[in-house]
């Protein structure tokens, strides 16, 4: 992948860059615009008190934001599936929100279904201000065209559940119901998530305790599925440092009931910045220091001219964790206007379970 399209985790700015709306310095900054000056946008500072359901809704004063859901699913015959549903928001410029078509918000949706033998993707774009795409906190609904994630009757704001999730593209579709077995989890320092040794940070919370059930159709053939899902909510104005080139990120569901959120930001000087949060079944978290995390790419997949590390060994000594992660489909390439690798994985070793891996900037 060329530098001009190197992206941050969650591919957010990809859409913006593809639309030609990212900052012009994107290439020079190496981070598709995320590393540029955030002048005019609201800054991310420590000490924010989260308030739900308000924070489930959009934060238009911040430059970027996403509603990100991944699910590891199985059919009754035991076949494994992955599902991704993402809505990105980006403000083209800071300042008062424009009315109607003058609104500066741009929305991008990504949807994907993964099976061991196929990976289907689709994308959508929309401008804010006219109702084609958006997010409302109460009653909760996030949508772009006919794709949506909406709160069902009896939605609990502190768990953002139950939800209904739906997307349809030319060659696949899915509908899932999501119920939560645990509370929302604030990542980083009470939701303040640092992305480098310097000031770069985002507001970040997750719902890692979803149970999912529903139906996936590939080429018109429906399959009933059940499994686990994970939602990330993140917004920021400048989450990356200018010398960071990409991101390797994992969300893991352990068979023992714990969850692990883990990422490393790759830096041009080789001093990668890593971070992890070990989440207990009751939602309590344990932050792992960068120095205690070792992530080693083990196997590579060639996709086009790119060489993508799709198999990983992960060691976290304080947790006595030593696992090997393998992808369900090593060709889980998101060939959207703005491309990255994202797909379901399973892992074994000292612990076992399933999860999602995202690789950007390759």
């Amino acid at each position, binding site marked *: 992948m060329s530098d001009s399209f190197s992206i941050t985790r969650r591919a957010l700015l990809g859409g913006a860059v593809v639309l030609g*709306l990212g900052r012009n310095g994107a290439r020079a900054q190496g981070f598709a615009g995320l590393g540029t000056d955030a002048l005019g946008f609201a800054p991310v500072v420590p000490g924010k008190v989260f308030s739900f359901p308000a924070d489930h809704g959009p934060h238009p004063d911040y430059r970027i934001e996403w509603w990100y859901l991944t699910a590891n699913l199985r059919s009754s015959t035991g076949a494994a599936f992955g599902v991704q549903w993402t809505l990105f928001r980006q403000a083209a410029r800071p300042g008062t929100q424009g009315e109607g078509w003058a609104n500066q918000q741009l929305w991008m949706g990504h949807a994907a279904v993964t099976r061991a033998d196929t990976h289907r993707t689709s994308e959508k774009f929309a401008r804010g201000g*006219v109702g084609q795409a958006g997010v409302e906190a109460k009653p909760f609904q996030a949508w772009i065209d006919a794709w949506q994630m909406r709160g069902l009757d009896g939605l609990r704001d502190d768990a953002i559940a139950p939800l209904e999730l739906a997307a349809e593209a030319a060659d696949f579709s899915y509908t899932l119901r999501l119920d939560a077995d645990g509370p929302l989890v604030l990542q980083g320092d009470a939701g303040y998530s640092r992305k480098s040794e310097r000031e770069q940070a985002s507001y970040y919370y997750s719902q890692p305790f979803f149970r999912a059930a529903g139906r996936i159709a590939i080429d018109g053939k429906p399959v009933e599925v059940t499994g686990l899902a994970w939602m990330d909510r993140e917004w920021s104005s400048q989450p990356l440092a200018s010398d960071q080139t990409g991101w390797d990120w994992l969300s893991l569901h352990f068979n023992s009931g714990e969850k692990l959120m883990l990422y490393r930001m790759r830096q041009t000087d080789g001093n990668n910045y890593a971070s992890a949060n070990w989440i207990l079944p009751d939602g309590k978290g344990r932050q792992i220091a960068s120095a205690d995390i070792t992530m080693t790419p083990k196997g590579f997949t060639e996709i086009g001219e790119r060489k993508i590390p799709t198999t990983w060994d992960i060691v976290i000594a304080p947790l006595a964790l030593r696992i090997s992660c393998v992808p369900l489909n090593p060709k889980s390439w998101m060939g959207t206007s703005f491309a990255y690798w994202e797909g379901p994985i399973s892992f074994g070793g000292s612990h076992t379970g399933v999860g999602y891996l995202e690789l950007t900037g390759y």
Partner: protein
Amino acid sequence: MSRILWILAVLLSHWRRHPMQLATLLIGLISATALWSGVQALNAQARDSYDRAAATFGGARTAVLVARNGGTFPQKLFAELRRAGWPVSPVLEGRVQIDGRSFRLLGIEPITIPVEVGNAPAIGRAGLQAFLTPPGETLVAPDALTDLNLPEGATPPTSDGTSLPPLRAQAQLVPGVLVVDIGMAQRLLNRPDQISRLLIGKTTGKRAPLEGVAGDQLRLVQPDAESDLERLTDSFHLNLTAFGLLSFVVGLFIVNSAIGLAFEQRLPMLRTLRACGVSARMLNAVLVVELVSLALVAGLVGLVCGYLIAAALLPDVAASLRGLYGAQIPGQLTLKPEWWLAGIVISIAGALAAATTSLAKAIRLPILAAAQPYAWQQAQHRWLILQSALALAVLAAAGLILWYGESLVSGFAVLAALLLGAALILPAILERVLSFGQRQADGALAGWFWADSRQQLSGLSLALMALLLALAVNVGVGTMVETFSRTFVTWLDGRLAADVYVNASDAAQATEIKAWLRERPEVAAVLPGGRAEVQIAGAPIEILGMADHATYRDHWPLLESTANAWKRLRPGDAGLISEQLARRLKLGIGDSVEVTAAGGNWALEIVGIYADYGNPKGQIAVNIAAFTRRFPDVPLTRMGLRVWPAAVPALISALQEKFGLDGRNLMDQVTLKAESTRIFNKTFAVTAALNAFTLGVAGIALLTSLLTLSNSRLPQLAPLWAIGITRKRLAAIELLKTLSVALITTLLALPLGLLVAWCLIAVVNVKAFGWRLPFHVFPLQLLQLLGVAMAASLLAALLPVIKLARMQPARLIKIFADER
């Protein structure tokens, strides 16, 4: 392999000794390819523009949702439909004026615009930011920028004072269109949260039923196979293509005669080659290779010439189409690879077709046979009978198509069959005329003159056929254009009877102007007019409200009417109908037509049919009072003024000054007529240019045929010279012969041309445009063409005749030593 090369070298050596022949062959191929591909390039360019126009308007080529009531509708339907799975993109359309020029303003939404449509304005991804971010951009065709004399980045004010976003040239756009972001369009047109239509993308997927989302507010319009513009301009392109094909055929006649001659002259060479052991198959293969290589070279040159022709004619074509239909074509030629390929292919195919007879002869070439002119003539006789039978069959077919045909294509088929039949029967008719001459002749030389002309006929017949076709088409098109011109001027006099025409910007200004005019003594009458658009049988129809005034009663170009038609209009239950509409709806005097008006359906009895040339829309004229009752919302902004002629200029400048009216909405009759006539004259400019080209090619065909003949005819002339007729006299006889044959052909071409004109006027025109012109014959024009044809024949015959007059006696003597 080397053997093939040697044979090729031997064959090619012929051209080195006869460079003139090579030139003829190449000129034939080049002019055929050039005219054909030039016309194709013009057509392609025009069609491309319609596609683009259709895509830009997003109407015809894309399925759309429009308001059931025809107006704009709330934008929230866009979001609701998107959420229901409909891949729709909003468009708001309106008109703005810059500097007195009217533009179609299109507000688009570049992010959702369907790919197949979105490529039309082609907003590159890099350009999207500038397009969307304030102040945004106004995309405009480079031509329009030049016309407005504005640089890129200028922000001209519209007529209501709002500034447009900075202009940016976009080559793919059609002139006359401005493209801005939809939000900007809503502001410029003062239509907040309103859209004109929703384009539907081709993406498949589950869509909720339309009624469930939008109730009965929206109507789905399926895409047309072709756009309105295409329908309207199809006949024009058919016309052009027919011309192109004709020119190509005429060009091939030249090729045929050049190849025929070369073959004739190379007979001894071919015989020698065969005697040396070259198989007939190999000889033929090499002949084909030679021909294809020549065709390739000529085809390439022809394509370049075709491009030049197209480039030279394009402004005229653009003007023609603008004048005829209001279609806008960018004045720049772009060509696709298919065009080049097709040109080469047609050049090679044409050359091979023209050489078929010669190649067939080469295959069956008897190695030791000598020439047998008389036997050859007998074969010619049989062929003449066959050809005449074929000609009669084709002519019969023309009659049948004329009788039973309904479509425009059938109109052209009649035309084609007529021309083909006439061309085929020409040699037989000439043969008849010449043998009649032969019977009337007294004296040996006169007898020989006629007999030799007959013998010469088969060699000349192709060239004469080309001449016949070119002349006939010239007469036909010339007559049609002249007819149109006359009719048009008379018709304009009738339609533009008032002295000054005013179009106020709104009802308030109209009232103000009327009040002001009432105070002016030089204004004899103010005739209000109104115009509304309705649909009848799915096509747009104009309803014209006309004042009940002597101005119209005396001048309106009624083709037929009831006795008291104008009086019948007064109660408001009768109307006059335009010829096109009458033909399309198959209505006549006394029939009734139903119009959907704001105040309910309106039944009108037809009391008159009038000429409305050049208007693609049907029209119904009614009394203005009745019009106002039925269309109370349509502002009466148009008015015709009867003014004391000498006071017109002063009144116009007073109106201009007082009400800020410009050339678009204030026009005196004289200017309007001049303007209309100018547009009309441009309309057939291309036809005239192509006519000249065709005639030129026919002239070349004649020249090359005569050159060809002049060499092969030496054996016939040498004995005459030997019995004492001087070379000068021989040359004079030759010239006389050529001219008389050409004269007979031209005389035959004139009635044929009139027939062609009748076909164009009474068959093709009615089917293409829906109106019929009165048929006129213009003797002076015919005489002029006769002169041109004879001059062309004289020029063509001159070179071979001079050659004969100056021929070395030794060459004539040598004839007797030759094998022939």
